[in-house]
């Protein structure tokens, strides 16, 4: 077993430090404070009435499969804005192993030339 002084000492690199136990103490105290503040609020609600239905702002409600957002559509905002990068990359991926080995040979050759000459 490690000694207690090794357990509680601060982790240091040459450019920074961190002690996780101090952060753990702060988290526990902050959790207690926030829990006490939260206890001032109102606890109950009327279950199983109109209150617990999901807010759809008046739109019609369909069955589950058509309403759920699929996981493959989750990063739509990200891929839509970088579409011009993904279009070029898509054309490069033909699925043919000969093309992939050709790319490999070209990049290795360029690397050897750069490292040898420069």
């Amino acid at each position: 077993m490690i000694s207690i002084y090794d357990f509680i000492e601060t982790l240091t690199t040459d450019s920074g430090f961190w002690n996780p136990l101090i952060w753990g103490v702060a988290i526990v105290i902050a959790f207690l404070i926030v829990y006490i503040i939260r206890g001032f609020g109102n606890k109950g609600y009327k279950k199983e009435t109109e209150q617990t239905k999901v807010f759809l702002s008046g739109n019609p409600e369909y069955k589950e499969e058509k309403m759920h957002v699929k996981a493959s559509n989750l990063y739509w905002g990200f891929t839509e804005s970088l579409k011009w990068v993904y279009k070029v990359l898509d054309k490069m991926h033909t699925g043919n192993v000969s093309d992939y080995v050709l790319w490999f040979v070209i990049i290795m050759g360029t690397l050897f030339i750069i490292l040898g000459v420069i």
Partner: protein
Amino acid sequence: MIYNIPYIAVVALILIGLYAVIFKRNLIKIVIGITLIESGVNLFLITLAYRQDSIAPIYHGEISRLMSLPVPHALTLTSIVIGVAVLALMLSLVIHIYRHYGTLDARKIGREEE
């Protein structure tokens, strides 16, 4: 000069194998090309293990002659076995592809989404 011939053979094997992988369309020819590259690499490993005027690293009873390095020999054995396993897997996949698509042309398979 005569001691450099195995190295030239290694370069020739690897280049021929790379040519077959990049420029040939038949899947069986691509598999043969991959096997050629593996043979070239194995030959390279054994050629590196040679010291001048040495014999094979096996004890006969007398230990007065210079011996070539034994570790690359062991590595090459392992590499040959790995090559056999990869060749078996590749050939079985080629058989499945032929049963599914009916052709072995690398540019005609895998175009289902368009």
